[in-house]
């Protein structure tokens, strides 16, 4: 059973809940392999996908999860101009709530917005990414993919490579991994690693080769050039030299290092194309697990009916 009403982030989120979600997700993963991929679990439930920021991948993944569970879905994309007015946020969500809905899946550019949302609505709130804060469903699908590959999370050594400062994926992954007993090393330019992050229980390295030697798996983050008002690293060429997961770099390591990437990738910048497409990469598994784990989250938080065979 789930002990929390909402899924806002993985900081302080009970490990048992994460494990329940992952176990349930493996069940749904089987459903997704069937010829008929639909179950009636959330029939009669209404879910609003409230996206204040474009995110084709996350939205499609959630939508697909909702359709597979037979929920009714409404998509609401707020224009970026209305985001800049605090008032319209409250109005928008209260209007949506008034339509008697069961859950809101929200992507928002500002940290804390999902917590803020819970003050205005009774519906279940699922955070689909809040600014540079958290992206818990992404972290859960990453954890599921690791578990699928290694059979366990506890004791795994995971490197997270790239722009940690501006990454909600990094923060949620750190909390989730540490919660489940993995070891985490962050690696990237010091300008992209926030001060005090070691207090979350992670190690920091500026040497990507060392991290690749140490790790069982690495999660390569997108370098988000569009966020750099000031140049926080000198050039993509230099970044690639220092931190890029290149083919040559990967070949230097003998062991079978597992490569993850939350997408969308900048091929040739943070990751080489042939690395992304290699056997070691589980990037496409992550995509499928994304649908399965989001099905599990929705199912568990919305109290879906058990599937009858």
């Amino acid at each position: 059973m789930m002990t929390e009403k909402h899924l806002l982030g993985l900081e302080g989120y009970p490990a048992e809940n994460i494990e329940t979600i992952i176990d349930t997700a493996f069940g749904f993963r089987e459903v997704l392999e069937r010829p008929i991929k639909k179950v009636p679990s959330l029939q009669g439930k209404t879910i609003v996908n409230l996206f204040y920021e474009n995110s084709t991948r996350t939205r499609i993944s959630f939508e697909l999860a909702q359709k597979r569970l037979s929920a009714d879905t409404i998509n609401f994309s707020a224009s970026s101009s209305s985001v800049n007015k605090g008032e319209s946020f409250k109005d928008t969500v209260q209007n949506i709530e008034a339509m008697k809905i069961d859950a809101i899946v929200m992507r928002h550019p500002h940290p804390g917005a999902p917590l803020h949302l819970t003050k205005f609505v009774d519906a279940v709130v699922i955070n689909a990414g809040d600014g540079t804060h958290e992206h818990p469903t992404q972290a859960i699908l990453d954890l599921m993919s690791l578990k699928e590959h290694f059979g366990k999370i506890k004791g795994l050594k995971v490197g997270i490579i790239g722009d940690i400062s501006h990454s909600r994926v990094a923060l949620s992954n750190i909390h989730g991994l540490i919660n489940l007993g993995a070891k985490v090393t962050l690696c990237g330019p010091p300008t992209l690693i926030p001060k005090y992050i070691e207090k979350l229980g992670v190690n920091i390295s500026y040497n990507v080769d060392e991290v690749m030697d140490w790790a069982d798996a690495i999660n390569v983050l997108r370098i988000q050039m569009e966020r750099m008002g000031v140049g926080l690293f000198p050039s993509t060429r230099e970044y690639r030299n220092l931190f890029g997961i290149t083919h040559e770099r990967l070949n230097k390591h003998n062991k079978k290092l597992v490569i993850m990437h939350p997408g969308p990738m900048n091929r040739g910048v943070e990751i080489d194309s042939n690395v992304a497409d290699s056997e070691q990469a589980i990037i496409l598994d992550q995509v499928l697990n994304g649908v399965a784990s989001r099905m599990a989250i929705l199912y568990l938080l919305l109290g879906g009916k058990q599937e009858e065979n």
Partner: protein
Amino acid sequence: MKITKLNKNTIFKNGTIYDPYNQKKFKGDLLVSNGKIKQIGKVDYPKDAKIINCEGLIVTHGFCDIHVHFREPGREDKETLVTGAKAALAGGFTRVCVMPNTDPPLDDPESIRFIVEKAAETPVHIHPIGAISKGQKGSEITEMGAMKDEGAIAFSDDGIPVQNAYVMRLALEYGKMIGVPIINHAEDIPLRNEGVMNESEVSTRLGLVGNPDMAEAIMIQRDLDIAETVSSKLHVPHVSTKKAVNLIEKMKAQYSYITAEVTPHHLYFNDSALTTYDTNLKVAPPIRSEKDRKSLISALKNGIIDCIVTDHAPHTIEEKEAPFELAPFGMIGLESCFGAVNKILVKNNGFKIEKLIDLLTINPRQIMGFDSNLFNIGCEAEITVIDPQEEWTFSKNDIYSRSINSPFLSEKLKGKVKFTIVKGMLAEV
């Protein structure tokens, strides 16, 4: 709160009278006649006198807050001089200085005169602080001489740091000539970056951009050096960091025209209170770490920081209901000030109540050059009567400001203002 005209004769009976100017404390009565201090200690009892029993209460100078934002002109939906003055009365403040970051800013003699004239109609004494630079743009200094003649008592671009060191030098040179303090909102803008809270483990966990303590320290060191070089008065507003405290301490040891202030919220909260993204705690400079908070308390104890100010900064509910990054900086603070600082300093940190009163009365008055010998016979009565023991929970009913953006709501405070007397009026809080 009930506000009435003072009787011809009013006796504050049997209180503990504390006169911070003469550093004297004694049990006794205080007679106010025709709005002026008539007798202290043993007093006559005129037949028609209104008698206010002050048993168990402290009768002292009216509090003085040299850093408030009353939003007039321009944002009268947040506060006006009149509503701000009522909030001041409720907090025991008889005299306040309003910051010039209004719309338009108080950056010329005419706007200073506007405030002085409007202030005459309000129930407390209000003094305008003039802008340092035209339009608060940080490039050209204002007509400080003419503005002083109209009633500006200090200069500041508060809210906006004077980033250009040369402009700061010019302002301090001019301030020296006309004998007023210059107050610079001390945050180095590029280092502050887009910071919305203290840079710390908490900001990292919340995914919010941090404003590092060095952004304050670096700007303060610059200002201290310039002030010393040109020998002028610098007043450092809302000190928030241990680093800044250390710099001020060092400079004060070698140069005497430096003063500094601290707010109740920087003394009361630390940044772990922000984990719920409470926009009422979003303020500039930000609420800092516990280490910083403790250093501010000892800086007050050691006289490195000279006074307490509220930085009362009203904002609308709508603005504060926005996501944290979008909400404006600032919180109201007049009504909750005494209960908050008395709890932190006297109850929790062993300050003498007299020391706290000094920080709210003579010290700020002396920084601004106001008369501070208020219990001199014949002086206009500016009196605050407090109950230092009363424990109470701060609620919306205690707010007289037009805005309610207070992080002290629902906080248990200790010490309450009971009466505020100023301009011939009696406020029963």
